[in-house]
């Protein structure tokens, strides 16, 4: 596997023979400038086009640039558009911003410089820890040290956003389940939405049929984006557009997610996440500087969440690396099922045992009450299991209430852009090692986090506030298949 995308996105490459540079079918608006008659267009030696007007003056013609969000809105090629990705969401682009910031500060133009915030999700930490044979917590701090050494002002973990994402998923599921029990037409099963590879596949391939089943809760990456661009920016007196927010993720699919128009604030001209870099890109960056992560002096991970707040309640997990119960992809099925068992059926200590079904990437847990199955949850990873789930749903034979879906086999710990195994080591062995590492981290529960209450009460304006749906939820859009001359065949 050479691509950093999940296998699912590689599959949605709808036309195998075109690359965007050759055959992009996306109509683009071209700004017309008045051109005098009689002008000629010449091709230069470097392949660029110039316009020669009557006076003999030359003017370089602009190339039409296709952005990643154009690609997302198009039913044509998508993942072959890596050249598009590279221009917007790459280590080079990130380093350029870092460099630029440094220069501004060196020239004393501190005010023009940006606040650079990097948020690190847990899977890349474990991937890099395994790569450099470090303890996870040590790797986390050294990663923080490295990012700060190249220009990051603030380095964050994503536990708070993960907590919010789990809590919102829980609320959403309970609402859907109760309203269905109440007889209204609600879409169950509810499918998780934190995997952008799966969401993108659903939008492109199954369209409006499937979208109502997908949880509207934002992924931790995008919740973090909202918190950084609104809360932290405000606390530090920055405009959202002057905060450059980078996330570190296990998969290229996250770059596509960050590029969605839903996460772009037009008024402030700001994206919630400006750039996504992945485990494998961090490894490349270190390698290009001949560095090992173990050479880097550690630095604290920042904890700016209580700035500007009166709360004094201690956060037990502050400064440590923690995990959620359940899968290494965020533990959605475990969390929501445990809460649902209690809230809906009064089972406070139900043994929720996810049993392997057809293959290790398809697991199921049930809650029985008086001999009846009252809840049926599943974890489905990888394309084949997603595929069977979709077919079952279409035939009305999907027995689940909730499914945690990730595009990569084994979920996010085996994300498409995690560091590759060393020579002689199988991908599966490495994934097993990362899973074991994850298991050993201390468990954290969203409700035990005092910051969560703080966020709901203050930042979001209290329970039931409209701000919750705008800040923590999103929407999906079916992509209509375009019929172009290229794909109309006999």
């Amino acid at each position, binding site marked *: 596997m050479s691509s950093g995308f999940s296998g699912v996105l590689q599959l949605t490459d709808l036309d195998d023979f075109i690359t965007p540079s050759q055959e992009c079918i996306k109509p683009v608006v071209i700004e017309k400038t008045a051109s005098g008659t009689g002008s000629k267009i010449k091709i230069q030696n470097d392949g660029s086009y110039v316009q020669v007007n009557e006076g003999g003056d030359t003017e370089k013609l602009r190339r039409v640039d296709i952005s990643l969000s154009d690609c997302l809105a198009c039913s044509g090629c998508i993942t072959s558009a890596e050249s598009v990705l590279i221009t917007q969401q790459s280590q080079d682009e990130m380093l350029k911003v870092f460099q630029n910031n440094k220069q501004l500060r060196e020239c004393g133009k501190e005010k023009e410089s940006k606040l650079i915030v990097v948020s690190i999700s847990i899977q890349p930490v474990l991937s890099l820890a395994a790569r450099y044979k470090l303890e996870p917590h040590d790797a986390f701090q050294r990663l923080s040290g490295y990012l700060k050494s190249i220009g990051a002002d603030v380095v964050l973990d994503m536990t708070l956003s993960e907590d919010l994402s789990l809590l919102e998923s829980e609320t959403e599921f309970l609402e859907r389940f109760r309203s269905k029990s109440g007889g209204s037409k609600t879409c169950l099963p509810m499918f998780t939405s934190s995997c952008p590879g799966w969401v993108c596949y659903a939008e492109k391939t199954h369209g409006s049929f499937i979208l109502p089943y997908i949880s509207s809760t934002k992924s931790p990456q995008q919740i973090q984006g909202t918190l950084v661009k609104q809360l932290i920016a405000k606390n530090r007196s920055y405009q959202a557009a002057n905060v450059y927010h980078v996330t570190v993720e296990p998969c290229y699919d996250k770059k596509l997610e960050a590029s969605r128009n839903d996460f772009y604030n037009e008024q402030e001209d700001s994206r919630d996440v400006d750039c996504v870099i992945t485990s494998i890109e961090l490894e490349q960056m270190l390698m290009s500087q001949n560095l090992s992560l173990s050479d880097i002096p550690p630095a604290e991970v920042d904890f700016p969440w209580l700035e500007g707040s009166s709360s004094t309640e201690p956060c037990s997990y502050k400064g440590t690396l923690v995990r959620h119960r359940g899968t290494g992809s965020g533990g959605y099925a475990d969390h929501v099922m445990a809460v649902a068992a209690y809230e809906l059926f009064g089972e406070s200590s139900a043994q929720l045992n996810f049993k392997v079904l057809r293959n*290790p990437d398809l697991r199921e847990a049930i809650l029985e009450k008086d001999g009846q199955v009252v809840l049926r949850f599943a974890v489905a990873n990888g394309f*084949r299991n997603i595929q069977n789930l979709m*077919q079952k749903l279409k035939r009305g034979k999907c027995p689940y209430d909730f499914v945690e879906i990730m595009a990569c086999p084994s979920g996010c710990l085996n994300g498409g852009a995690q560091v590759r195994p060393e020579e002689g080591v199988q991908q*599966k062995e490495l994934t097993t090692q990362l899973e074991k590492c994850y298991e050993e981290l201390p468990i954290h529960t969203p409700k035990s986090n005092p910051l969560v209450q703080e966020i709901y009460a203050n930042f979001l304006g209290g329970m039931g506030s409209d701000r919750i749906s705008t800040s923590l939820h999103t929407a999906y859009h079916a992509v209509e298949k375009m019929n172009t001359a290229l794909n109309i065949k006999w």
Partner: protein
Amino acid sequence: MLFEPYHLTYVLRLIEFPKHDIPFADCKQPKLQLVQVLSGHRGRVWNVSWHPGGNILASCGEDKTIRLWGTEGGPEGKWVVKTSLTDGHERTIREVAWSPCGNYLASASFDATTAIWDKKSGTWECNATLEGHENEIKSVSWAKSGQLLATCSRDKTVWVWEIAEEDEYECAAVVNAHVQDVKKVVWHPTDEILVSASYDNSIKMFRNDPADDDWSCIATLTSHTSTVWSIAFDRTGTRLASVSDDGTLKIWRVYLPGNGEGIGLPDDIDPRWKCVCTIVGLHSRSIYDVAWCHQTDLIATACGDDVVRIFQECPDSDPHQPSFNLVASSSGVNGHHQDVNAVAWHPTIPGLLASASDDGDVKLWKFLEGEL
């Protein structure tokens, strides 16, 4: 190349097909005798498949229909259309395949679906549709056990389907090993090994890994210099024939770990496939299909130069460097008038062969051995 080759229809034949030299001057030459022309399809016929019992021939084509042919008045009688299946697909039907038990017929279509037909209700009906491929499906094949089915597509993937219960097919694997359009999938005659041929010029073999119940590539066969259109195993499963757009027919032989021939293996578990024979210069265009008869060991090829050719292994040939003779071909007035897309040997009558062509006809041939 964006399309399934919409073969250029020049009539000009630049290379005159070389006449085969018959070693014995006074023998009666082996020949391919036309038995019957089965007309009825509108437009090109893509594929033909014999029912394992031998009494039904299925054909399919760009008219989106499947025709089931049978004999009239006993097994020696004339072949006539018995049934036309017309409502299964929205686009060209590229391939049809009978299940080993003969109760099911699978059809692969450019509409990105595979339909499974059966006669449980008394008439042939489509009772399951396999959805999931992104675009045109090129080939479909049943494993010997009848419990697994494979399909491949222009979307570059190979899918393995498992029969979960009556008329329920579940996707067991999506294999992303080829870098281009996959043209053909074929199962090994005895083992659960799947083989695919692609526009990326390679042939790949896959096997189930019980550790995670997924399918992984165990061998990549490279030697062809252009699209590999089709592949066929011999009756033992130790040899594979492949045909390509490069105009060659290749024979591959398997070398198991610890073989006495000193053929190095990539690792100690998987067998290695080696190309032991290449037949060059006899086909003047792309070769689209190959069939290896499990009764007579004859090899038939379907070629873009409109000719069906029959190859026979030389009796004294070295198993590690075998040689094959072209013993008969379908040239002349009886032959197809356009590209031959498929060939299939009858499962029980030795020497009976069906061919399908762009000229809209299916033809039945009888291979007659030469006599001294």
